[in-house]
């Protein structure tokens, strides 16, 4: 708190004020929509196709994440770290 009573955001704390409302809204929406529907194993044939399986794009996403990490500031790809500087 500053001298004039205005709440001062400490340096380095920019993430949580931004992220928490979004997190809470997203989580509420997800759990509201999710409900308690149970899909039986014999009903899963559509879910087992490659287009419905997140692992299908794993290798493509690895390359995309590496490219994004070299170009985009707001990207958390490739484990969050940086690559070399030749492409930076």
């Amino acid at each position, binding site marked *: 708190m500053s001298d004039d009573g205005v709440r001062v955001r400490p*340096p*380095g*704390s*920019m*993430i949580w004020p*931004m*992220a928490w409302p*979004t*997190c809470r809204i*997203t*989580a509420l*929406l*997800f759990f509201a*929509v*999710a*409900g308690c*529907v*149970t*899909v*039986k*194993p014999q*009903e*899963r044939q*559509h*879910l087992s*196709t*490659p*287009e*419905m399986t*997140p692992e299908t794009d794993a*290798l*493509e996403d690895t*390359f*995309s994440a*590496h*490219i994004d990490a070299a*170009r*985009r*500031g*707001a*990207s*958390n790809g490739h*484990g*969050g*770290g*940086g*690559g*070399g*500087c*030749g*492409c*930076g």
Partner: protein
Amino acid sequence: MTAHRPHVRRRRPGNARWAWPWPLLGLACIGALWLVTARPALAENRATLRGNYYRERSTRVVQPMAQITVDAPDERLTLGAMYLLDAISSASIASGTQAATGGDNVFTELRHEATASAESKLGEWYLGGFFRYSTETDYLSRAGGLSLARDLLQRNINLSLSYSFGGDRWFRIQNNTGARAPWCGGDIGVNECSGRGYGRGSNFLQVHNVAAGYTHTLHPTVLLQLNVAYSHLRGPLDNPYREGFLGGIEETHPHVRDRFVITPGVRWKIPRARTAIEPFYSLYVDDWGQRGHSPEIRVHVRPTRHIRLRARYGYYTQNATFFYRADGQYVDGSGPCTRALELNCATADVKAMPWDSHSPGVQLTWYFDGVAAGHRALRWLEGGFVEVTYNHLFQDNRFGNARVGSLALSFAY
């Protein structure tokens, strides 16, 4: 004052049974669990070759890679290995390295990356671990991680949690001599920078990454996904080669960064239309004041049983970091770059600037199952596929537009 006797730890007689090697006991438990778990019907080994290509005005990346996974003997233990080579060619100073090395020649740098992984599916539990080693002329990276996931409610919910740690060493190729010197950030002189240890004054970048995932099957054709990731980076985070852009001032960024990403998404299959729709959105925030939004939609269509077409469109936008100055006028500060000492910061990094991009793309995948079923001599192709991908990036930054392509060939054996 009592005499100081040397302390010798003695094991009590008959106490030897407590001296169990606990790591071995843990391994024995995992082994026993592994043995009693029901054996799945199928095991699949897979080999994948992939060539990636990235081309923009100043930079070209050619990346061949090979990946092999082996079920030993089935999905209770899957071992994987991957090797990739990054051949990065830069034709202009805009790509960075020539600012330090001088000269107008095309600069090509090679990066080698090897990854070893192990995964295990034990009933409703999934365990995984990996180690990755990556090296290039001026960068060395080691990373390892563990992941844990569990299916719940008859596989209608999957929860996952992962942690990885990366330890990177930064170097700078010295002007004209080609010698390699540790790089600790623009605010630390070359003579004060050490290639050993960690903390300020060291070229060590540590990256802690925690991610959690939630997948929910809402309907036999609808899948809901939510992923969140948090990264903490500590160490040099600025490019050693951009002083040419800054009138001789070294690029100087803060040494700490906290990044947060949340990605909700849906996969919805429409069987009658042989179509699946996959919209998702990523929100990124960090403590450098940067935000990013990247909505994307992918539409998969099956014109025939063994052919899959995918069209995608992605939009990306980011704002500037707190220390970016649109006028490019920086002073040569002499201390660390922080929010309180913003004048010490300097950047010519596109990653710190505001820009956006549009990226449409197409993909064609041909599954070999049909061919394998029709010809006895080609039965070995069963489970294999070839995949061709092309994406075009319309980028509103100094690198300009980019073309991204890949060709993948995968076989089950």
